[in-house]
């Protein structure tokens, strides 16, 4: 296997982008990534795009061909593939691109993610997202994602006595970081009170425990490490790519408040990179709900099971803490355009490793991690990236 490096990244601003269509979004992100890599389109050998549900959100399928066409690649007939794993679609698209380059099949490959979610009413988007759960055993009986994660939160709080205030601290911290990220959908700092007094969604989760509905796209370009310097002075090496699966229904899990797929993918990634959690300078985890970040930092090994609430409340996951988590603002403040999120996480870590993260920069960042979850944990993708 060849070593793989990231040579360019691009991301649209996230938000309710009513003036931008699905096509506009990925063309903008792709163009930004090409510009970043100082690359022209004819050098691209293949494309992978993460997208969860364009069929339901904009009634468009066949996304692989669509993005190749609108990226101006149709006449060159390059292979272009859509990857779908619910909210982990972006992370898996990145992994496919890395595998394609590592295997020697392709040289310059684009990994993109895009979701256009605001063309439908909120009820319809909730229904589309429910497709990430088990339709027969969860969706058909009325479970929604806030409901499922609320069950995880209830179980976790019962077992480990985490307080409501500790849980709210996840959102406060992520909004603090998001306020320092120019692409964030909600770049506003909030207080504990904002979270605790917000509208109840599914007990114990309130509005500010939940990531928003978002439009956005992100793209990264990968190449063999040995050729990376042709395109950039600051290549970022892919130290590990790992993926794991689990039962699609929450009730079939060994432990409702542990994502075993996160544990498995995390362990595989650390093994592949020959590193431990102590080597990681910052991590982007999948905080689709505040409780998801609590579970993630434990399941990846950054703190002991049952202690993440206190760990967070003590500021250990904030900028300047032991392990800064979600410096981008996470899904909560940066926004969650489902298929794009996994790529945006890579985009954030690359910015940190290049020292280009501005007011949210982690000093001396050398190694970073991304953690992208599909559904309630049926798919997890973990990547470790490092400075060269």
């Amino acid at each position: 296997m060849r070593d793989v490096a990231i040579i360019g990244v691009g991301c649209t601003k996230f938000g309710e982008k009513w003036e931008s269509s699905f096509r506009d979004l990925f063309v903008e992100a792709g163009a930004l990534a090409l510009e970043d890599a100082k690359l022209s389109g004819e050098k691209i050998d293949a494309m992978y795009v993460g997208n969860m549900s364009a069929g339901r959100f904009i009634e468009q399928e066949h996304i692989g061909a669509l993005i190749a066409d609108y990226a101006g690649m149709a006449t060159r007939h390059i292979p272009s593939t859509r990857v779908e794993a619910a909210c982990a679609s972006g992370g898996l698209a990145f992994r496919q691109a890395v595998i394609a380059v590592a295997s020697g099949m392709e040289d310059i490959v684009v990994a993109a993610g895009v979701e256009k979610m605001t063309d439908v009413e909120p009820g319809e988007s909730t229904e589309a997202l429910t497709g990430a759960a088990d339709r027969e055993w969860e969706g058909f009986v009325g479970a929604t994602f806030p409901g499922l994660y609320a069950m995880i939160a209830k179980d976790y709080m019962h077992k480990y006595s985490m307080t409501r205030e500790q849980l709210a601290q996840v959102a406060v911290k992520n909004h603090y970081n998001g306020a320092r990220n120019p692409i964030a959908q909600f770049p506003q700092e909030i207080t504990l009170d904002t979270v605790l007094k917000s509208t109840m969604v599914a007990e114990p989760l309130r509005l500010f425990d939940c990531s928003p509905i978002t439009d956005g796209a992100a793209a990264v370009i990968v190449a063999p490490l040995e050729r990376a310097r042709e395109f950039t002075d600051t290549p970022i090496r892919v130290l590990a790519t790992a993926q794991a699966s689990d039962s699609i229904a929450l009730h079939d899990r060994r432990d409702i408040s542990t994502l075993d797929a996160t544990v498995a993918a995390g362990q595989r990634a650390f093994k592949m990179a020959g590193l431990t959690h102590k080597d990681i300078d910052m991590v982007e985890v999948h905080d689709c709900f505040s409780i998801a970040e609590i579970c993630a930092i434990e399941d990846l090994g950054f703190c002991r099971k049952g202690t993440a609430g206190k760990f967070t409340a003590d500021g250990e996951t904030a900028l300047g803490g032991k392990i800064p988590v979600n410096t981008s603002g996470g899904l909560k403040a940066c926004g969650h355009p489902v298929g794009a999120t996994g790529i945006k996480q890579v985009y954030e870590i690359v910015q940190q490793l290049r020292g280009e993260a501005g007011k949210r920069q982690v000093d001396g960042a050398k190694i970073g991690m991304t953690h992208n979850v599909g559904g309630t944990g049926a798919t997890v993708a973990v990547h470790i990236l490092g400075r060269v």
Partner: protein
Amino acid sequence: MVGIISYGVYIPRYRIKVEEIARVWGANASDITGGLGVFEKSVPDLDEDAATIAVEAARNALLRRQIDPAEIGAVYVGSESHPYAVKPTACTVGEAVGATPNMTAADYEFACKAGTAAIQTCMGLVKSGMIKYGLAIGSDVSQGAPGDALEYTAAAGGAAYLIGNDDPIATIRHTCSFTTDTPDFWRREGQDYPRHGGRFTGDPGYFKHVKGASTLLLKETGKSPKDFTYAVFHQPNAKFPQKVAKDLGFKPEQIKPGLMVPYLGNTYSGASPIGLAATLDIAKPGDTIFVCSFGSGAGSDAFDIEVTDTITSDRFHRGAAPGVEKLLKKPIYLDYALYAKHKGKLVMQA
């Protein structure tokens, strides 16, 4: 010069408080009153609809001015809750006020701005000499689905304007419109309740069109916000008109007399016409009024209005019909159960 010969308003006596609706849905009432600036809304009686409200408003307009109703050559009623899909409300109104049969009539629908569109139509017919008087009405018993955000504001009421060029109480010096195809809010044929695009009704809907028409009117008249004594903006809630007024450079005291929504709710086609009526209730000769309506779908009509000496003369009897302030007094509060009955949300056994 073409203008307003008379005007009249009707608002049903019943109200429901935002707190009562919030109680039913388990929502935090102070979040809603704080977010929308609306505290209660009007509710029609069991036998009131957009037609009866239009008739009451038209009769109140005619009480204030001695004209021969047979000289009304056109009746246009704007509403998004016409009682019939086919059969005009305007004919009922025309018959009720004695304007039939030598008149033209039609119903209008343009979400919340059909009433001001009716005023513009009557202005054109008067200016061209086709008619002597035209009756333009905005009237609604608007719908909000149970539990929907709209339910807190969807109210009932209407205002009627008699348009002509013979001794108006206020001249309409200029009008212009700003219209695009924007699907921010809609109700399909046969559906009971409208649907909407949430926050999409804000910036791309209300603000774009109200600012578009307002800016155009200021440009075409060469005026600025300080040239107007008062301003009235469409008021789906209290926040939107306050924000758009501020953004355009109007002061809070200019919009205050016409901002009826906090204790009335959004009367849809009646909203900006009632706001204008409340302003005319207190206006003095020489006062100038800026008006800009908004209807989802979407469009805005803007008006430059100047009050004449006639409003305080013996040819006009402002006190002969109740003003908006009086119509809002002595409400009868309903609980949600009676509200549901009044709004026909309870399905009776056949």
